[in-house]
């Protein structure tokens, strides 16, 4: 479990992270979302004790990470896959980590196998692709078999196989009861992988809720897709009732703000035969853009999502 309490980081006049409070629960994949510069990486760095908070605190497994003697057994992290000495082999990089925790070198070979780095581990990191560096970083995070994992954009630079592999890995890690905090810009990936979302913008908390709740929340606009030969009649009737209606390329209508029942009833009233009627939920991408479009504006209207977990 990760507990973030009033975490704040200022650089001069800039508040990079502004009074953040949230928990990351075990047994779930928690997606950490926010636009570039929202403070995600800074938050993760403060959780790991790399950067010193201006105010507030962060606990990993109930303790400040910076005081741990065997930190890799408590939390493993991949923050920046490029942050490896280019002249050292991947295996030697992991041997340094293992040595620092008193872990046997057998563990090094195990995680190399686990991430599929194989014989490339003997080569110098200089020649690695970004995808290989991501795998090396993940291997380092897994080395101490930790209860908490932090991954900052782990899917960057991975091909489709790699992305699917990371998705499966974080799912499995969470199902094993570990705490997984995962930041990513890939919304479709997040939608498929995360159970819970923490969304920040301009350093402030925008939402902290189960993903299903975010997708159904007030910033999610359910739409109804309807196909009818009497397109104009139905559209006119819906417009008169104050719903927004968009014709689609496929000769259908997309109705905003009305549940499927209402659309069906209206169609019956105007005598339009319905050939298809389907509710569509907004994608995480749409909700996310809406939420983060103006972080300050939505900060005010966000309490319905903040703290709505469980």
């Amino acid at each position: 479990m990760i507990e973030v309490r009033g975490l704040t980081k200022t650089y001069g006049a800039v508040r990079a992270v502004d009074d953040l409070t949230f928990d990351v629960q075990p047994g779930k994949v928690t997606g950490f979302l926010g636009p570039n510069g929202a403070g995600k990486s800074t938050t993760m760095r403060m959780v790991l004790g790399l950067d010193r908070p201006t105010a507030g605190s962060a606990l990993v497994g109930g303790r400040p990470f910076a005081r741990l003697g065997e930190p890799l057994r408590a939390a493993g992290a991949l923050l920046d896959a490029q942050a490896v000495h280019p002249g050292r082999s991947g295996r030697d990089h992991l041997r340094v980590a293992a040595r620092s925790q008193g872990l046997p070198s057998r563990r090094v070979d195990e995680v190399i196998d686990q991430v599929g780095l194989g014989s490339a581990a003997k080569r110098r990191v200089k020649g690695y692709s970004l995808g290989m560096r991501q795998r090396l970083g993940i291997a380092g995070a897994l080395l101490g078999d930790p209860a908490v994992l932090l991954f900052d954009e782990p899917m960057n630079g991975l091909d489709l196989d790699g992305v699917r592999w990371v998705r499966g890995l974080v799912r499995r890690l969470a199902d094993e009861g570990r705490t997984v905090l995962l930041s990513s810009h890939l919304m479709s990936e997040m939608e498929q992988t995360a159970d819970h979302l923490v969304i920040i913008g301009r350093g402030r908390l925008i939402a902290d809720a189960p993903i299903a709740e975010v997708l159904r929340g007030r910033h999610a606009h359910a739409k109804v897709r309807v196909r009818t030969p009497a397109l104009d009649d139905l559209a006119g009737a819906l417009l008169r009732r104050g719903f927004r209606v968009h014709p689609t390329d496929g000769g259908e209508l997309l109705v905003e703000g009305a549940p499927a029942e209402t659309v069906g009833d209206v169609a019956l009233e105007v005598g339009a035969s319905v050939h298809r009627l389907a509710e569509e939920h907004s994608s995480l991408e749409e909700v996310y853009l809406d939420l983060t479009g103006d972080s300050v504006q939505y900060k005010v209207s966000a309490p319905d999502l903040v703290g709505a977990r469980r």
Partner: protein
Amino acid sequence: MTAATAVRQPARSTEPGTTTVLSRAAGAEWVRLRTVRTTWWCLVAATVTIVGLGAIAAADDAEGTATAANPIVSTFAGEYGVLLGQFALLVLALLAVTSEYASGAIGPTLSWTPRRGVLLAARIAVPAIVVTVVGVALALTADVVALLIDPDLTLPVEDGAGSLARIAAVLAAGAVMAVGAGLLLRSTAGALATVFLLQLVLPFLFQSFGVQWLADLAEWLPGTGAVRLLLDEPMDMSLGHAAALVVGWAGLALAAGGWRLLRRDAG
């Protein structure tokens, strides 16, 4: 989508003691040092310079001053060698620190050893010990090689030990200064320039102008102390003064670099 199958308890009852954490951190530093090629290139350069210069000095001497009746102690070979060869070793110590800031590897390093005081101790001790041990061994080699080149030289145990002790002091203090400068400046170019200026360039430059206040200023630089410890020059500086200079500068660099590591963001 999920229900937590089993909530893992963080294993923490067996938190190791500081001695264990420090010895592991030092072990990790040692693996770090020997798994990059730069280290080995620096050692090759140090070997060539220290033993090579010592041999040349001995060969030069073989044509001149020492005679069987009036033998000269061969320690000058190692001392001249270290005077220049120390820079290969200081570069080794310095790069061990600054390369991590260049690549960003300081992030993983600190997430493996987040107790910064422990990391500082290991990061100072390991390069300083390696540099000192290697430098003393190479100086001794140079002394012995000098004996082989010029049979008129001699190497009494007492003189040899004294010379190696002074060399050890210069190298240990120099390594600590290099690591401290690396931790403070976090840039290879900046730290390298600083160490070279303080240890080599400025002491000679300031004395070469023939301006008194510049010469006086040179008396306060660590390089002047190092030259005094290695070559017994200038004679008007006491051994204690010279030792205080190199140790003082090492302490200063350590304090400043340590402050940056302990108190500031990882970088």
